[in-house]
């Protein structure tokens, strides 16, 4: 379809009316908004499940829910948060910001963009619908290991089809991001002038296309094992359940970088702005991101150290996993070096980025501990693992998403938000995320297993601390919603640059706030003078 430029300024901000604007949305800003709202809703659904888990774990013994329901809470909490909250939030940010950052009028494939969003509500309705059937929701763990996952009732096929739909949506979203970045950059915007958020998303999109289909394949094999008599994972027919774990984690480890690389991009945008310095080591950041993505395909069996692998494999996967600490260390070093002798200020996006930097690094260190194969025999399936991945996913990915929202919200709404409320939200979140997850390290090292509704009385005290932290952390997220609603409805007028005194660099700050419905219909010309960074 050819683009028709009317150059009629009067029509530039005309939006389709009514519900059709959203149902048939093809505008990247509308679709970005829908993704972000969907992610926020799923964040609260997944959060409510976490509250059930923490309430049940307040005391040893069984309090409020029966064990099967507890297991369905841990299972769906993970699926909802990973596929429903974090990934759609990143896709929403990509939709909003990538065209604005590369000077493109829209995403490359707007119609497919609409499909990939509208698949998501169906996928999650399907996933959660089995809670209303007699057999209950999926309860075999989000990793869906056979044979346990095959022993579920109605929740098994709905979960598999929901995964298929989410996978299709992610793959379409990823194709859209790649085509947009490769084909629609403004003239002069060479790849090594791209903002880092675009770079990390480009690499993430390739990871998605490489591994989401592998997950689709794995769950399809589960499906045919269950209904069509195949024996991929069924020992009775010569299959091997451990084979499933290999295929799943071949997807699963790159998936954790899908959940964190866009976060790296976000903080790489925010830290330079509020340090009032260009990003230190831009090229190194790009190559480090690419190295992390490449290495992510070579480490999957570190999730399987206790499955009885031969010594050579244990050593290989231990060392390849530790290797990832090198490019990750380069990134952490560069963020610190960006701040070094910078003129720092601590607006909410910077606060969330800084706590990302500290807390993600803690999660990285516990990851290194888990990478040590002999030590992992003690840590495997304990709360230490739970503490580790929540440090990288909550105080990592989720904090980066919040930093991004606080950074770009005035650009989206045209209003500044309530800074006091945002800082209160930050301090409550940053303090209580640690109260929530730090004690889980102790519980895990002391031997408390994960995915268990009941526990030995010796674990009571730290579980109480953790639950308390969880309740305050969960409640304080309501402030985030209040703040966003206030900011949508009104507030001080935001300038085009929003953070004027910090002089943010990037094309998104050259359009008005709120960003007009149609932007960059004539592409801007990019030169070294208006590029983000220095080459180091």
């Amino acid at each position, binding site marked *: *379809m*050819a683009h028709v430029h009317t150059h009629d300024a009067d029509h530039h901000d005309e939006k389709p009316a009514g519900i059709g604007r959203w149902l048939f949305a093809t505008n990247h800003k509308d679709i970005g908004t829908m993704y972000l709202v969907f992610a926020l809703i799923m964040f609260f659904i997944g959060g409510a499940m976490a509250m059930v888990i923490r309430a049940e774990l307040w005391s040893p013994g069984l309090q409020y829910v029966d064990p099967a329901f507890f297991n369905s809470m841990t299972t769906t909490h993970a699926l909802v948060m990973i596929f429903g909250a974090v990934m759609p939030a990143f896709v929403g940010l990509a939709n909003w910001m990538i065209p604005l950052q590369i000077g493109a009028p829209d995403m*490359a*494939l707007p119609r497919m963009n609409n499909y990939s969003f509208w698949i998501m509500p169906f996928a999650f309705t399907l996933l959660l619908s089995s809670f209303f059937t007699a057999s209950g929701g999926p309860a075999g763990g989000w990793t869906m290991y056979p*044979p346990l996952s095959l022993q579920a009732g109605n929740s098994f096929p709905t979960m598999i089809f929901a995964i298929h739909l989410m996978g299709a949506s992610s*793959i379409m979203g*990823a*194709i859209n991001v*790649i*085509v947009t970045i*490769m*084909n*629609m*950059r403004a*003239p*002069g*915007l*060479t*790849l090594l002038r791209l903002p880092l958020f675009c770079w990390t998303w480009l690499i993430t999109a390739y990871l998605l*296309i*490489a*591994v*989401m*289909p*592998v*997950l*689709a*394949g*794995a769950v399809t*094999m589960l499906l045919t094992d269950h209904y069509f*008599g195949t*024996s*991929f994972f*069924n*020992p*009775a*027919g*010569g299959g091997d359940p451990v*084979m499933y774990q*290999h*295929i799943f984690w*071949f*997807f699963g480890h790159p998936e954790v970088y899908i959940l964190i690389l866009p976060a790296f991009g976000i903080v790489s945008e925010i830290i330079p702005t509020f340090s009032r310095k260009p990003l230190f080591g831009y090229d190194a950041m790009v190559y480090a991101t690419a190295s992390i993505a490449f290495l992510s395909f070579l480490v999957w069996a570190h999730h399987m150290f206790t499955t*009885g*692998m*031969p010594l*050579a*494999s244990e050593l290989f996967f231990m060392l390849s996993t530790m290797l990832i600490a090198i490019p990750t260390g380069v990134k952490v070093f560069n963020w610190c070096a960006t701040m070094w002798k910078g003129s720092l200020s601590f607006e909410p996006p910077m606060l969330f980025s800084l706590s990302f930097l500290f807390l993600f690094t803690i999660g990285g260190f516990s990851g290194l501990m888990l990478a040590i194969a002999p030590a992992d025999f003690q840590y495997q399936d304990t709360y230490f693992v739970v503490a580790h991945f929540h440090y990288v996913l909550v105080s990592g990915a989720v904090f980066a998403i919040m930093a991004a929202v606080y950074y770009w919200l005035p650009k989206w709404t045209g209003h500044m938000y309530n800074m006091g409320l945002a800082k209160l939200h930050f301090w409550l979140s940053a303090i209580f995320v640690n109260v929530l997850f730090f004690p889980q390290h102790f519980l895990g090292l002391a031997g408390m297993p994960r995915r268990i509704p009941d526990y030995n009385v010796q674990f009571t005290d730290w579980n109480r601390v953790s639950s308390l932290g969880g309740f305050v952390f969960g409640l304080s997220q309501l402030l985030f919603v209040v703040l966003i609603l206030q900011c949508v409805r009104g507030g001080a007028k935001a300038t085009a640059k929003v953070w004027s005194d910090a002089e943010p660099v990037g094309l998104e700050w050259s359009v008005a706030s709120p960003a007009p419905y149609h932007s960059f219909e004539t*592409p801007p*010309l*990019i030169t070294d003078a208006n590029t983000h960074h220095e080459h180091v």
Partner: protein
Amino acid sequence: MNEHYPVPTGPRRHVPLVTRLVIFALGSFAFGFALVPLYSVLCKVWDTGNRWYGTQARHVVERPAVDRLVTIEFLSSVPNAGRWDFRADAPTMQVHPGKLYSTTFYARNRSGAAVVAQAVPSIAPSSVARYFQKTECFCFSPQPFAADEGRHMTVRFIVDPDLPADVDRVTLSYSFFDSPRVAAAN
């Protein structure tokens, strides 16, 4: 200005890249399935000690190492609890490598109907599986059971005298599956 433009132009400019990416995604999907045979091949090539392969022998030569004793442990498990009794008649045996032995497992069908069952063996540690050879085993073929029928089933085995000197204990375990569809396919 157009020489600065890094990208294709024209109405169908996205088609080639989208086509390549769709093929990439389909290839990844196929790769997921290809991992299944790939793992088996790699396990054989690297000789990591598969739990199943190479443990079934037609001809063996007895050359007993009478000065060495190895403990063989027998384990049994039933994925569908309640439908079967299944146990080793002797939980452990002391054997000399290089000598042929036999033992029995007992199974009783409590499902209330005639069923064809299949036992699947596994040897631990898997790295020594190739030194444990079975000349006769109820696991070699599907086992038909009438309703409520119980019987003792034989396994004859020999431990290779080349079994590494540091191994003094080998575990043979069977899982007993009543999957008629799978058993029929075998």
